């Protein structure tokens, strides 16, 4: 495989927008191309993530539509849908296409628009990522999926609601340093614990918001990337899947797809968890961050809650997690999330993250989880 680098990134502000998802993507992609310093004519393919366009915007065929709105209609374009991990899956395939020598420059990104519909509607559409025969008829929601995981983690390891709240407080503290974040306001443990239950034991402030937004990154072969001021190298990109049904998961307190994707990524890069300086991971719910830090090998199984509570994952801590504010505070436009996480790690490794910069970060990791933990992508990044 040829070496592949990220040479440009762009992210819109996340939150409420009066623009279509294609417009949000195009905005981010324009910024990413400017950042890369290459003309749009250099782009040889678009790999695009979008999830509920059919439901919220009555829009399928979102790949070429996004390319048209951007103004590069003639490049081969493919939409990826792996629920919340869609644009990270798109990224992995672009890495492989450049690595294989098929293309030299690929635009990867994603976007989502959901705040144009009600919470009851978006809750229903997101639940389409659980099984339509065996789970949706029961009224399962995504907070419900992670509530079942949270309860299992609490039973098995003694994880507490206060430890979960510590994740929300930390990510809001980081988000307050990110001008693109949906929430740039600090919160307290008490506020989290006193917020209303959405799906016991998860409360409103344990949950990431619904968000509109777009994100894009420009990938290039080593030959092209060498001409760029600060290429960030893709050291690994790995995917894993798991059973769809919650009843089929042998141990709800763990996410085997995270463990398998992480093992594959570490093997590809010849690195281990202790080599990672900064992490952007999938904190769709506070418990999801705790379980992910364990599955990535940053902490032992069962130790993730305590790690969050004692500040090990804060900026300035042992291994800063979600300096962007994470899905929790930065926001979670699901099709854009994977690309936005990659954009943050690239910004961190370039040393351009301003007040949320992790000092001296050389190696970064992104982790994106799809739906009911049945899809996980893990990628590793390094700088020269």
């Amino acid at each position, binding site marked *: 495989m040829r070496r592949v680098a990220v040479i440009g990134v762009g992210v819109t502000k996340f939150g409420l927008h009066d623009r279509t998802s294609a417009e949000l993507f195009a905005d981010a992609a324009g910024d990413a191309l400017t950042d890369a310093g290459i003309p749009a004519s250099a782009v040889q393919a678009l790999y695009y993530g979008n999830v509920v366009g059919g439901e919220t915007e009555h829009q399928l065929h979102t790949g070429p539509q996004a390319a048209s709105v951007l103004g590069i209609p003639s490049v081969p374009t493919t939409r990826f849908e792996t629920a919340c991990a869609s644009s990270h899956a798109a990224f992995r395939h672009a890495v492989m296409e450049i690595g294989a020598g098929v293309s030299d420059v690929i635009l990867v990104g994603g976007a989502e628009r959901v705040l144009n519909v*009600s*919470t*009851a*509607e978006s*809750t*229903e559409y997101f*639940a389409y990522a659980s099984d339509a*025969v*065996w*789970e*949706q*008829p*029961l*009224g*399962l*929601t995504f*907070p*419900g999926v992670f*509530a*079942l*995981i949270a*309860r*299992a983690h609490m*039973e098995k390891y003694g994880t507490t609601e206060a430890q979960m709240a510590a994740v929300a407080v930390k990510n809001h503290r980081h988000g307050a340093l990110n001008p693109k974040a949906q929430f740039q306001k600090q919160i307290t443990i008490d506020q989290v614990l006193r917020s*209303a*239950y*959405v*799906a*016991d*034991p*998860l409360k409103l402030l344990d949950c990431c918001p619904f968000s509109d937004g777009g994100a894009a990154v420009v990938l290039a072969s080593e030959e092209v990337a060498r001409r760029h001021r600060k290429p960030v190298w893709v050291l690994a990109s790995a995917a894993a899947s798991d059973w769809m*049904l*919650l*009843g*089929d998961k042998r141990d*709800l307190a763990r996410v085997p797809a995270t463990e398998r994707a992480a093992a594959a990524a570490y093997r590809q890069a010849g690195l281990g968890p202790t080599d990672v300086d900064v992490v952007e991971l999938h904190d769709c719910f506070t418990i999801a961050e705790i379980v992910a830090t364990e599955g990535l090998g940053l902490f032992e199984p069962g130790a993730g809650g305590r790690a969050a509570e004692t500040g090990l994952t804060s900026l300035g801590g042992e291994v800063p997690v979600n300096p962007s504010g994470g899905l929790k505070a930065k926001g979670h436009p699901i099709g854009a999330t994977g690309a936005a996480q990659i954009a943050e790690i690239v910004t961190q490794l370039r040393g351009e993250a301003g007040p949320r910069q992790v000092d001296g970060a050389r190696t970064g990791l992104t982790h994106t989880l799809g739906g009911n933990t049945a899809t996980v992508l893990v990628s590793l990044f390094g700088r020269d």
Partner: protein
Amino acid sequence: MTEPVITARAFFERARAGQLTAVRCGSCGELAIPPRELCPACHARAWQPVPLVGEGTIASFTVIRVAPRSHAADAPYAIAVVKLQEGVSILGRIVDIPLDKVAVGLPVRFRPLGARDQTSIGFGPLG
């Protein structure tokens, strides 16, 4: 060709009659619920239906308070992963147990739920 015994339709026909059914692999003995085409343990395609007792204990649960649009009228309601006596687990709606009495380890019994002409999986009190 897919044997009718392992279709979701066959499963829910039995469920509607009150019988929770798994499938056992004729090659390696693995038990699975719900049914699937290949045995996940040995990849054989030799299932036999196995009636289950329908009793188990709650492995994990949640109370859904913000529901999808299609279930908004039911909220709040409890959903649980139930570990069945035979060792396999399945997700179901908890019914006829007060929400504050639902707990990990609580014994429950299968009962079919009917809504919108569709049978789904429920669990109620054992007694």
